[in-house]
């Protein structure tokens, strides 16, 4: 059994009992990286030296009894969280050589927990995309089928976990960027409630939607990761000063007497029959586990993509104004004056999708259009949130598909932005409402591509969310396949 294929909780037991060492786990992970990274390309930057230093330190800490649940565990970081001393590119040419002078709060927490950082994972540029194809550093391939995309924007983190190039990973989710690639790569991915995990040091895409969350090989690992990253941070005004429970306590509780809602608006035309099948089987499993399934309505669902693609680009257009070639990042040397320097640096530094969204956002906020776009979308967003508030009065959790289709082919949607945006149709509303959501593997298509099922709960109910995800995982007994790369 290769160590790199194991879960956090399995490795933790072995480390505690002295059956293995962090150095051995890290060696196994880098051996695997060496074997498959050329084909998959999960990482933008590998930090092997740092990882082994951390592993050696972790082993010393374990020996002296100072180990925690993540001590010595290789965790990959999406290249959107700032790491002091390690370049952080956000998938963009404009930050190609940017070395942050500070750590993001999640990274600081992982360092303090004794985790090992194998590297920074690939992503759509500034997290804008659903396929990891907009990265300046090349595409990432789906480990289950190298001709397919891994999803996005956290595609590298998803593929790294799926391909055993790390034990778990961190991603960020603005409109589905954790859950969608988790589903397409057959791993667990969770977006916590907005405000549950500090955004300090997370390079902003859309600040009112962004949230950091874990990728893992099973639900238990997801709970362990959440224990490590959740909690109030005085450096993030939007993080919530509330107690964080021990999430692993929810895993064995079961869902007898729960009511689980199925939003009728999510079963639309155009959803792939194999995906639909897998999700319907998942509903059956939930029912078999003792829950009652009811139909619910989220009446404003059809507007979520439009709302999202006004609000997220609006915020992004402002968030990305700081990339001006003055203090850090790429600067064009051709500009003769300041205006030319700005325009040439930004035009050469950003890729097409980023520019498209900056343009949409700038237009949506501009004089004469604000009310029709940004304000209108923010009002519809309030209605979308009300839909969920209403729904959670009737049910404990919601079950839904994650994506309308399994992983699609590389290049398939690159020329049709709108079609690409519609990939996020089932994941976006969760970000708009601020609620937590999780994607759990629920089967495979005939051609062997993974499919995920999504659970959603009310604000700050990550405990319940993990409870239903764990109950589903136990009862579903999905055969645990590994991708052949």
């Amino acid at each position, binding site marked *: 059994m290769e160590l790199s294929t194991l879960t956090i909780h399995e490795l933790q037991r072995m480390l505690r009992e002295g059956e293995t060492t962090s150095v051995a786990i890290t060696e196994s992970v880098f051996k695997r990286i060496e074997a498959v990274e050329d084909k998959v390309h999960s990482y933008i930057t590998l930090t092997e030296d740092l990882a082994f230093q951390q592993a050696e330190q972790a082993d010393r800490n374990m020996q002296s009894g100072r180990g925690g649940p993540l001590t010595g565990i290789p965790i990959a970081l999406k290249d959107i969280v700032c790491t002091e001393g390690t370049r952080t590119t956000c998938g963009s040419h404009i*930050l190609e050589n940017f070395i*942050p*002078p*500070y750590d993001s709060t999640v990274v600081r927490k992982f360092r303090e927990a004794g985790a090992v950082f194998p590297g920074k994972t690939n992503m759509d540029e500034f997290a804008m995309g659903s396929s990891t194809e907009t990265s300046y550093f090349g595409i990432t391939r789906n480990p289950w089928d190298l001709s397919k995309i891994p999803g996005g924007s956290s595609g590298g983190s998803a593929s790294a976990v799926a391909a055993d190039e790390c034990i778990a990973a961190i991603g960020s989710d603005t409109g589905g960027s954790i859950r969608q690639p988790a589903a397409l790569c057959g791993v667990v991915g969770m977006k916590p409630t907005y405000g549950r995990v500090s955004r300090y040091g997370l390079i902003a895409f859309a600040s009112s939607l962004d949230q950091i969350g874990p990728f893992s090989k099973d639900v238990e690992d997801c709970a362990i990761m959440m224990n490590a990253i959740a909690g109030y941070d005085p450096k993030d*005004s939007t993080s919530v000063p509330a107690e964080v429970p021990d999430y692993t306590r929810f895993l064995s509780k079961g869902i007898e007497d729960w009511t689980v809602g199925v939003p009728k608006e999510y079963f639309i035309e155009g959803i792939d029959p194999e995906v639909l099948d897998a999700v319907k089987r998942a509903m059956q499993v939930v029912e078999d586990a003792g829950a009652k399934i009811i139909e619910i309505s989220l009446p404003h669902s059809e507007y979520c993509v439009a709302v999202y693609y006004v609000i997220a680009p609006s915020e992004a257009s402002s968030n990305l*104004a700081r990339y*001006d070639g003055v203090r850090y990042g790429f600067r064009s040397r051709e500009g003769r*004056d300041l205006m030319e320097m700005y325009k040439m640096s930004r035009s050469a530094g950003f890729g097409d999708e980023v520019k498209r969204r900056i343009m949409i956002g700038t237009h949506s*906020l501009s004089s004469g259009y604000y009310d029709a776009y940004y304000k209108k979308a923010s009002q519809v967003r309030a209605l979308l949130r009300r839909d969920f508030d209403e729904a959670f009065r009737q049910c404990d959790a919601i079950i839904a598909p994650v994506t309308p289709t399994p992983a699609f082919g590389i290049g398939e949607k690159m020329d049709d932005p709108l079609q690409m945006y519609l990939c996020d149709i089932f994941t976006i509303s969760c970000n708009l409402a601020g609620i937590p959501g999780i994607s759990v593997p629920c089967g495979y298509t005939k051609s062997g591509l993974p499919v995920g099922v999504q659970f959603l709960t009310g604000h700050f109910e990550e405990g319940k969310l993990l409870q239903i995800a764990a109950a589903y995982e136990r009862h579903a007994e999905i055969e645990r396949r590994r991708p052949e790369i």
Partner: protein
Amino acid sequence: MEFEPVIGLEVHAQLLTNTKIFCGCSTRFGEAPNSNTCPICSGMPGVLPVLNKKVVEYTIKMGLATSCHINNINTWARKNYFYPDLPKGYQITQFAEPIAEHGYVDVEINGNKKRIGITRIHIEEDAGKSIHDENQPASYIDLNRAGVPLIEIVSEPDIRSAEEGVGYLRRLHEILVYLGICDGNMEEGSFRCDANISLRPKGQEKFGIRAELKNMNSFRHVHRALEYEIKRQQYILESGGHVVQETRLWDEAQGVTHPMRGKEEAHDYRYFPDPDLVAVHLSDEWIEEIRKTLPELPLAKRERFVAEFDIPLYDAQVLTASRALADYYEEIARKSGKPKIASNWVMGDVLGHLKEDRLEIDESPVSAHSLVSMIGLIEDGTISGKIAKEVFEEMWNTGKEPGTIVEEKGLVQITDTSAIEQAVDDVLATNPTQVNEYRQGKEKLFGFFVGQVMKVTKGKANPKLVNDLLKKKLSEG
């Protein structure tokens, strides 16, 4: 046709906090470039702002001191524009829901009170500094000032003359400094002012086309710039021309305003709510708590001094020029029980010496307590007013208590009638000619005799006794 100026002023005041508005960097002025910066105020990727509570408290103080309504909910917006000293590409400010609105201050112009409305007071962050190189096509960016907390105070277009404008500014300045929330230093840019100014025919309701004036770095500049601009616009209108809506810079050296160089871009700041900052909810209790900490404001203090201490308005104005001076005076007035004498000493000797030595009132070598003792010595006849001047001089130079000085130098006043009588007799005896002339009606000589007696007694004789005795003796002959 007679024209009437319509002026509105926008004041930016830097708040006297220890740290910047959204990060823990120091706000100290004059440090090496970029030494007071961090990832947050330099706009690094991934950073987030956290609001300095003191900024909110200080602004509430200003709102209350200018009779504003304090909004219970206020929110943050981003003002988007590109400039190299604006690190994030947007300025965090308050837009839709500012912290304070609908206030006013009363200004006195030539003895007439005039109320000038305040439209709003909002909080925002300052930008950094661009230093332009004269020799190279380059600018240098120092972000020490980026993120320093400012409040913007916007007046109603209620101002009708340069005097009123300056009067209003002085009043705001005075309040800010009194509250201890701004150092008021105009040269370092802690207190800056822009003006909107237009002219309209007298009696007309509608405003004329306005120019925006910038670059006025002192009250004098503001006064001169407004006067110049009123004349400039008047000339244009009288000769049938049209005022252009534009931004103009005051040129102090030439005493004129120039249009800002180059084409002004039509700004589109794309304001929208800042998702990184949460709303500030101000409970009525919190606002009341802050209200309780407000010091007595200059205008109220002035009126109270006139009423309570029976001193002229002018004196009250001088004595309330700063909170520290007013406190100094008030302590002396109360403890000595002689407010008028106290005001003479403070306005004359204390302020004179301070000015000479370039000291502030809180650096005065003569404490209020010492001055009270000195007035006590005069009142109980221990020293004369004349000796007191000498004592004060010594107090100023040595910091010693007046009692000690009087004792060390033997300056105790002679109140022994026989000793003075002796001196009077001696003076009259040695100056027979003058005595004769006096008795023949040359009463002006009385002063001469007083002077001679004082000279003989080294100034220590009680002047009242000297007068009485002299009058008696001279009329006896």
